[in-house]
């Protein structure tokens, strides 16, 4: 790792304002209409009981079409100020980074990032088109959820292929190979067509030759390795999204009033009993 150009050696400003003296700050009401609250039977202005806080959080999430970030919610829940905008917007300036710089060791963590924001995406239009078709062939829209491209998977793969870090730079040639190869193969087999213009059956004819490297014919080994990487990233990206979570059966990342462990149905299936009281 090289010196972070944004820091320029010793010339780093301390974030003296970053620390808020919480103990000396009066707790703020959680919302415009503060809920009267009690803890342990004692009325405490502006402080929510756990149960009430949870109801408030969950209720707000359910009621809002575009919910505030979870951090904001939790900050409000405990009577603290939401994330200051200047903090949320603390993104390394693009022009201060060299072509090979990443996000540094101190990016804003509570911010939502979009592919292309930190470094430029580099797929050509043709590559993006092929990547979209390939991603949606690997993860199509079905009863388990939307297609990969509908939830931003193609942009996330492009972000990966365009990233400055060693692992991603190592992956780039294979990712480019995967998308270029399916297009070339489509042209070869189906009269000059692009992969994106093939029927599902035609796409499958190509993918079947490369989908499992150990059984791929020698002439397809290289493409099969590329396909495998592309599929892995597709999955890594798709299952990073809430739609992917639903598809895979992940039901966490929500505040709960208590943790009950696996339901009886699961315990029975495994032949175990809950051992913690």
């Amino acid at each position, binding site marked *: 790792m090289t010196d972070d150009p944004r820091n320029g050696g010793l010339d780093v400003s301390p*974030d003296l304002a970053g620390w808020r003296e919480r103990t000396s700050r009066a707790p703020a009401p959680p919302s415009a209409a503060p809920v009267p609250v009690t803890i342990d039977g004692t009325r405490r202005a502006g402080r929510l009981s756990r149960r009430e806080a949870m109801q408030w959080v969950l209720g707000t999430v359910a009621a809002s079409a575009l919910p505030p970030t979870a951090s904001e919610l939790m900050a409000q829940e405990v009577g603290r100020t939401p994330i200051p905008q200047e903090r949320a917007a603390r993104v390394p300036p693009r022009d201060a980074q060299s072509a090979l710089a990443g996000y540094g060791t101190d990016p804003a963590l509570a911010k939502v990032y979009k592919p292309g924001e930190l470094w430029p995406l580099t797929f050509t239009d043709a590559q993006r088109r092929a990547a979209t078709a390939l991603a949606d062939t690997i993860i199509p829209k079905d009863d388990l959820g939307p297609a990969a491209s509908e939830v931003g998977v193609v942009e996330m793969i492009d972000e990966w292929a365009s990233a400055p*870090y060693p692992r991603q730079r190592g992956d780039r040639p294979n990712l480019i190979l995967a998308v270029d190869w399916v297009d070339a193969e489509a042209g070869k087999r189906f009269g000059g067509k692009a992969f994106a213009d093939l029927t599902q059956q035609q796409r499958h004819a190509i993918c079947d030759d490369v989908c499992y490297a150990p059984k791929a014919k020698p002439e397809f080994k290289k493409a099969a390795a590329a396909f495998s990487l592309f599929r892995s990233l597709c999955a890594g990206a798709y299952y990073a999204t809430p739609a992917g979570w639903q598809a895979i059966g992940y039901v966490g990342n929500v505040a709960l009033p208590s943790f009950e*462990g696996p339901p009886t149905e699961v315990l029975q299936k495994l032949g175990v009993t809950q051992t913690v009281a």
Partner: protein
Amino acid sequence: MSIISADQAKPEYDVVIVGSGAAGGQSAFTLTLAGLKVCMLEAGRSYDPVAETPMFQTPADAPLMAVATPDKPFGFHDATIGGGWEVPGEPYTNTTKAENSQWRWWRPRMVGGRTNHWGRISLRNGPYDFKPRSRDGLGFDWPIGYEDVEPYYTKVEQLIGVYGTNDGLENTPNSPEGVLLPAPKGRAAELLSQKHGRKLGIPITSIHRAVLTKHLDYQSIPQKLFPGNKWAQGIVKEAMSERNACFWATPCGRGCNVAANYQSTTVHLPPAMATGNLDLIPMAHVREVVVKDGKATGVVFIDKVSGQEKRVAGKAVILAAGACESARLLLNSRGPDKAGVANSSGKVGKYIMDTVGTFLSGHIPALENLPPHNEDGAGGDHFYSPWWLYQEQKAGKLDFARGYHIETGGSRGMPGGGNPVPDNLAEGSYGSKFKQDARRYYGSNVHYACRGEMIPNEDSYLDLDPEVKDKFGIPVARFHWKWSEHELNMARHARKTFTAIIESMGGTVNGSKDAADGNKFIQQPGFIIHEVGGALMGADAKASVTNGFGQTWDVKNLFLTDGATFPSNADKNPTLTIMALAWRACDYLVGEAKKGNL
């Protein structure tokens, strides 16, 4: 005033503390609540866990699906916002060529240090762990025993909040009744592991972690911690009441903006600051302790804001910079000794230890296709296996002398960034079949980690590199390393044990299960981030650096409260013991100061 710039420091403090993590935080807490004026120096920037912690962010919200990069080695959302395995301009060197013997040094640069992202595993050392040499003739005994530290374990557990159960297992102490918070329920993979562990004689039970599974009892705990001191009680009560119980989501490694787990920045520093007795200077990189006429008078530091060298004066100095950095500081200070200060024994830098780490994962068909259910839990481990073969070891049946515990993992944790479908099992599926496979295999992976005791040895130490200096012109630490057969054999044993558990569950080990050569799978020293040693406490001033209170033999008003003083590194993760010893050392410091002995 609490957070100050270097120019705002007062002419003199009662105590100067170097470092703001578990040791620095606990030291500042104890001293400021005893009424002492404290200045804390931290090499990294200030950090606000309330505003900066990514709670509920999805991997898709982060660049590269939040996977680890050289900038964020524990993933994008990990709490660490400065430093890491490499710190630009601040190298360290290794003399050992073999990769598995090269020290890796995790150096976060931020207020709160490692406590912001740590695993929160909080295990007490047992009575054996303080007297290892008496038991097996290896390493060193501590000059103190479990009974000396026990009251402080209890105090720390009450202050920070630790969940777990009292199981009465050998050398695995119970906490007094009512001290531990309720243990979280077992999850599918953990309960299955527990069942099969039992068949193999491995007791898998609730781990202890510093997470609030319920609100701390802020009405009564402060009175127990500070009997008769209403002022301290009031401050601690206020700080404690502001912490929230866990809401069973968001991994603890991100930190916690509702303070439901322990980190120095949410538990120790807020009450310390509320006393009005703490000034914290971030971006202050300490280069040496100033010693005059046998007494520490303060420290010299580089103010990274101005780039200038500055001093802060104190009637006593506490090093809490992390074991290796504290040892390096002593070596870089100028004193009467040939090398550094507090080093008349010549033992500063010696006996660096980390935890013996190795891991294995497996695929368990029984865990496939489970009905979806929420297993986020307490944001980290729920179960572990304390070391269970003390008697076999005593009977000479094992080829290594010390124990390891098993951290048991595998759950339906937050997906993203990785492929949940093993290529070899799905045989290349894609399309809707792939999505069904993902649903099938998700949650069917288990993993086990060995966390074992390394025995200190003469070949594992640090000194100053005679040639390499950091960007401030300070000589850097140079590491020397050698694993002994005890560590390598332990790693082999652990690997075989993990294989046995996985196969007992009807599963298959991922990758190789070969356990012939420990060198092939023992993790690099430093990698487990349990660095201790380098300034060992002892009963003999000629053979150790500090007494049992972390007070250096040579400089009476110079203390170490981090892991540097550990004469052994039990399998129990060191943080809880660091805090207990820091509290104890600071109580002693206050007493000695009152008597005029410093």
